[in-house]
């Protein structure tokens, strides 16, 4: 296939779709499937078959539409009508609704209002196709302008030109660190090496984050296209997608998409009849959080234990098999096609300060609307939680939002109006992270949350460096003592010292960021720690406080011994 043939095919597909009298999109991503989307789809197909003599109805299984807590979701699309989205479908209801549409009497049961803030207040650029196309169907992606960016890059851009466009857009890595993507690509482009590699990081280890899963399951071709453009821009001929082991469906869809793209001449040898060749292989992770770290991830791709190595040398000089490598998050790659297709100005025009473009968040926890949202960088937390998320269930008070998973921190209620961008989140003691956003209400105990994350880091520490291996255990023990009621204030001082020590001396990001949840909860919720320690009370009523507190007497005795003051005076 070459560029003209691609354009011709896209035109045909569009024409076909626009003449189709009725298309029904059933969200078949994991949350909707577990809510029963499979049966809904069968019911719709049965109704479509009944009417097949009269009108043709296309029933499509799509990826994630976003408002996951309202699933199963069904969208009815007819030319000349606005999309009608229905929530909480049952097989009977879905059949009735489709039959209604076909007889021009569409019922209003379970219809989502067209201006539902959850959908209307988003800016969907990376997620533009999610919930709109069948992820397993290349034609659907092509009809949605798919691979137009790759064709344009190969045809109209030099590799330097692509790097420059990405730089100009201001795109920064969406995997946590926020390193400028264009700059990273330039480094690889200029690096000398026989072979170069492009790696997509789909490990998504942060518990409570599911953006990358949704993107890989709902729009896999977009990631392939982004990677191929990266390959062209940097001179790499081989790419790897590293998919988290817990996401077999994402891996399967990536596999299929790669195969389909290869068959269509959009990947593999001489892409679109240009001299550029690029292959992609999928690698499945095996359940280790640290493998999200780039050096550990590369070790894992090479079939080894996922233990990080010190940087520098950075992957751009010494990566897979010692060759120059670029690693980006899958959402970063998802941003690439629109930059090339619509120009870098589109992305650069959205956002705030040095954070340009949009960010996908996985909104969950104690908030009414759970699901996937894409908002401009710099949107306030209040807008996300209350306008888009609908507030806290049962009218409970908002207490904190956790971003960045075990490497991030909590943002307290006084910062609800803070802008969500890289710099500001860092200033508040958290990080942007990969986009998990867990809302906590007054029913959540912050000490318990800190303990939970430390338990996670302790489990996931790879054990290579001692600050992380031993530090996480010591911190966990202390936090456990706080929540069971046997900690002392002196311990708290030690805890803070230990946090600093780990931050400064750990080998990789896991250890260096493991203290973040503790530090940020201490910063905003110190009184809660003190209530546990001094008053033996958990304000949220979560911790059981079953242990006998260590008496201050013994603590003071120790202090006196240390000071050499055992003069027998009464305590």
């Amino acid at each position, binding site marked *: 296939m070459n560029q003209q043939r691609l354009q011709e095919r896209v035109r045909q597909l569009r024409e076909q779709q626009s003449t189709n009298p009725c298309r029904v999109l059933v969200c078949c991503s994991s949350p909707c499937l577990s809510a029963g989307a499979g049966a809904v789809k069968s019911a719709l197909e049965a109704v479509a078959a009944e009417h097949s003599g009269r009108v043709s109805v296309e029933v499509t299984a799509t990826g994630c539409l976003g408002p996951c807590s309202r699933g199963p979701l069904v969208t009815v699309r007819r030319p000349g009508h606005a999309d009608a989205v229905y929530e909480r479908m049952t097989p009977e209801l879905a059949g009735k609704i489709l039959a209604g549409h076909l007889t021009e009497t569409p019922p209003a049961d379970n219809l989502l209002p067209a201006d539902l803030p959850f959908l209307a207040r988003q800016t969907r650029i990376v997620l533009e196709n999610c919930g709109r196309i069948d992820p397993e169907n290349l034609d659907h992606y092509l009809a949605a302008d798919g691979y137009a960016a790759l064709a344009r890059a190969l045809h109209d851009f030099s590799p330097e030109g692509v790097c420059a466009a990405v730089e100009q857009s201001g795109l920064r890595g969406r995997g946590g660190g926020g390193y400028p993507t264009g700059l990273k690509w330039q480094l690889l482009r200029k690096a000398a090496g026989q072979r170069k590699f492009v790696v997509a990081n789909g490990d998504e280890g*942060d518990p*409570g984050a599911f953006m990358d899963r949704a993107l890989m399951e709902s729009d896999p071709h977009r990631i392939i296209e982004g990677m191929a453009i990266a390959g062209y821009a940097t001179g790499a001929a081989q790419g790897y997608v590293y998919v988290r082991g817990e996401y077999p469906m994402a891996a399967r869809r990536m596999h299929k998409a790669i195969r389909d793209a290869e068959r269509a001449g959009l990947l593999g040898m001489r892409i679109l009849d240009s001299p550029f060749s690029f292959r992609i292989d999928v690698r499945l992770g095996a359940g280790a959080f640290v493998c999200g770290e780039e050096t550990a991830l590369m070790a894992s791709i090479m079939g080894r234990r996922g233990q990080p190595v010190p940087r520098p040398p950075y992957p751009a000089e010494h990566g897979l098999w010692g060759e120059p490598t670029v690693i980006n998050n899958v959402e970063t790659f998802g941003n690439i096609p629109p930059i090339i297709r619509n120009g870098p100005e589109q992305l650069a025009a959205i956002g705030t300060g040095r954070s340009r473009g949009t960010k996908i968040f996985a909104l969950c926890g104690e908030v009414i609307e759970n699901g996937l949202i894409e908002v401009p960088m710099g949107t306030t937390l209040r807008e996300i939680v209350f306008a888009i998320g609908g507030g806290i269930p049962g009218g409970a008070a908002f207490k904190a939002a956790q971003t960045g998973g075990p490497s991030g921190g909590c943002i307290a209620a006084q910062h609800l109006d803070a802008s969500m961008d890289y710099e500001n989140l860092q200033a508040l003691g958290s990080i942007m992270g990969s986009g998990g956003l867990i809302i906590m209400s007054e029913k959540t105990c912050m000490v318990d949350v800190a303990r939970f994350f430390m338990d*996670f880091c302790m489990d*996931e520490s790879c054990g290579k460096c001692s600050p992380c291996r031993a530090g996480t255990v010591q911190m966990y023990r202390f936090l456990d003592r706080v929540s069971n009621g046997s900690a002392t204030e002196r311990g708290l001082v030690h805890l803070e010292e230990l946090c600093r020590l780990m931050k400064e001396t750990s080998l990789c990001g896991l250890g260096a960021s493991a203290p973040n949840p503790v530090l940020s909860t201490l910063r905003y919720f110190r009184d809660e720690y003190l209530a546990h320690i001094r008053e033996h009370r958990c304000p949220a009523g979560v911790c059981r406080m079953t242990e006998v507190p260590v008496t201050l007497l013994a603590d003071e005795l120790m202090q006196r011994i240390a000071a050499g003051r055992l003069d027998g005076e009464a305590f």
Partner: protein
Amino acid sequence: MEARPVLPDAITAHVDDPRRRLVDQTLKRFQYRPDALIEVLHVAQGAYGFLGEELLSHIACQLNIPESQILGVATFYHAFALRPRGEHCCIVCTGTACYVKGGGEIVKALEAAYGIQAGQTTPDGRVSLGTARCLGTCSQAPLLMIDNTALGHEVVEGIAGRVAAALGKSSSGREPGS
């Protein structure tokens, strides 16, 4: 490392085993490259349900890497089990979203109901109880997986009964080699 001599009857004992054939096909597909180790272990685990000693040394031999290295990899990653799992798997998500909504309480309730700790299998080999760090379906929190079926929006009251019912309906915990 030098490839170890393999006894002829040790080969013939496995020739007809479809699971072993699946593993061997995978080895061949990756052209016996050592960097395919994790992919091969995934297939082997899917076929056998766990990675036995004999299986590991077979793979080590085929990929021409030391057994110590393969054991290092198999024990590093959580996804690989070196001992057989129960007939059914019950995985409770203890990721952040599920934890905030009471996943921890559900683990405790099930541990009490089955008299085992998370990570163990009941003595009759019927149920393995496990935890996971986020199954990526956080909007259904708190979440449980009974074999391949998800139970979403769970509450701790009466959880043991619902798990038992779901286990009764579920035929087998193992995915055939995926």
